[in-house]
């Protein structure tokens, strides 16, 4: 195991994060505050509680997920896309490192950054609403799995994308709509029956539901199902990355 290589990649990536610290932390915090002001206070005060949870508190897990997903994807995808774009990826490819070591370095750094942002949002939210976390262990488990899974997913996008447009495309056109339609701002009980059924095909619903369950014990779907779906997605991403490295997809001719 080349632990020095993992350390080196992780350190370099975290250094890159530090250089862009303000923008990478300020923007999710700012947007979270805006969501709370608009949805939590202004509109939320006119919405009755959902499953016994005040609306402002209800949206916290969903908002965290929204930031975590977008941040994980953008950190990890940029982390590998940029070396590919500038050509510096030659160094990783010619180094005595395995696929696993590369992943741990890059995805580990992206995950760390997402976790930091998640915690900051949680603290920010606690200023606006009364937070209660019923199952801290599962909350952390969901948090960690989500960050890892979507950092891996971002890594795949970064490997696949050969220009900046493609890099933005998937987060913008697929992830953001799925998060919004996955029950960030509502419980799917509030939807007409047909849309409730359609929502069940949205994988992010399971993630958000499970995460919210760890806070308030209210969920749209069974928490075991949520856990299985999240872990399944993580594994699927890991397999795809492994396959991409093995075949040298978009990395080696």
């Amino acid at each position, binding site marked *: 195991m*080349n632990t*020095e*290589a993992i*350390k*080196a*990649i992780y*350190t*370099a990536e975290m*250094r*890159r994060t530090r*250089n862009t610290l303000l923008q990478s932390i300020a923007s999710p915090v700012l947007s979270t505050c805006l969501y709370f002001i608009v949805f939590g206070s202004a509109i939320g005060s006119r919405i009755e509680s959902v499953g016994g949870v005040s609306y402002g508190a209800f949206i916290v897990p969903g908002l965290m997920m929204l930031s975590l997903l977008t941040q994980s994807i953008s950190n990890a995808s940029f982390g590998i896309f*940029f*070396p590919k774009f*500038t*050509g*510096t990826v*030659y*160094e*990783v*490819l*010619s*180094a*005595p*490192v395995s696929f696993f070591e590369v992943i741990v370095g890059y995805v580990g750094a992206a995950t760390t950054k997402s976790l930091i942002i998640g915690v900051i949002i949680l603290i920010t939210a606690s200023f606006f609403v009364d937070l209660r976390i019923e199952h801290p262990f599962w909350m952390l488990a969901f948090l960690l799995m989500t960050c890892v899974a979507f950092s891996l997913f971002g890594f795949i996008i970064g490997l696949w994308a050969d220009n900046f447009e493609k890099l933005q495309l998937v987060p913008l056109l697929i992830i953001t709509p799925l998060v919004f339609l996955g029950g960030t701002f509502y419980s799917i009980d509030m939807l007409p029956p047909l849309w409730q059924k359609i929502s069940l095909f949205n994988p992010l619903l399971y993630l958000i539901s499970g995460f919210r369950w760890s806070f308030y014990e209210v969920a749209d779907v069974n928490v075991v199902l949520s856990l299985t779906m999240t872990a399944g997605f993580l594994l699927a991403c890991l397999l795809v990355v492994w396959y991409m490295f093995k075949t*040298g997809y978009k990395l*080696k*001719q």
Partner: protein
Amino acid sequence: MSETKPAHNRAPIVKIRGLTKTYGNGHSALKDVNLDIHEGEILAVLGPNGAGKTTLISIICGLVNATGGSVTVGGYDHVKQYRQSRELIGLVPQELALGAFELVENTVALSRGLFGKPRNPEFVNSLLDKLSLVDKADSPVNRLSGGMKRRVLIAKALSHEPRVLFLDEPTAGVDVELRKDMWAVIDELRADGVTIILTTHYIEEAEAIADRVGVINDGEILVIDDKQALMDKLGKKQLVIELRESIASIPAPLEHYSLQLNSAGDALTFTYDVRAERTGITQLLNAVQSAGLGLKDLSTSQSSLEDIFVNLVAADS
């Protein structure tokens, strides 16, 4: 090191057998390349653009998958034992690929880590010193000039103390002064016992610094030999006979010598093979005299590596 034993008597540090590469578009960039690289030598791989130099290096270093054949570095297979083989290799790529805002010392430390070596700021510093980069240690790499960037890439390649260094066109697009600088750097590295393989399309570069020269064209190694041997073996010598009085044509008794008469009619050129047992010069000179031509002067010249290269590549295509 190199004084103790001639390089070619030792086991090769890089051994390439039957290497082929066909790119996805069907282009055959390497056709059955066989090559031994000896420890401690400077090997110049000389070839025109598109000859396959970068492809060859990229396969050895793991950037491109070979279609067929085998490579070992220090006895380790470059695919099955990639960890051991890659630890021995440093690569300076053809393109000036460097991140944007990274600091010089950080990017060199990153390279060292990637190759599994523990942090060692003193060593990194001494490396930067050797490459005249010390005062640039905390500059962002994107602020450096092209020549300095190349030096940073060399520092990165040497950061894990490799035994074999590949330099892919280290002086392409570099002005004459920087090129001489680079040659000095390469010379010092060799003195440290590093084996160096450099690709180039500048013949004068191969002539100036290489111990051995391989000529590659269209995916094939046409010839590889010690630089001097190559020039002796493939080089032609020319004898120019200046005449006291100009003549209109070559006199009949001299016709079978395949001489060339210059346009002024006052000089004959005789081309001969250096290796030939009998060059025929004595006979020729006698014949010239008996034909009644007066000699003014004699001079010989030997063809350069450039002539050899041009001849080889022209004959090949």
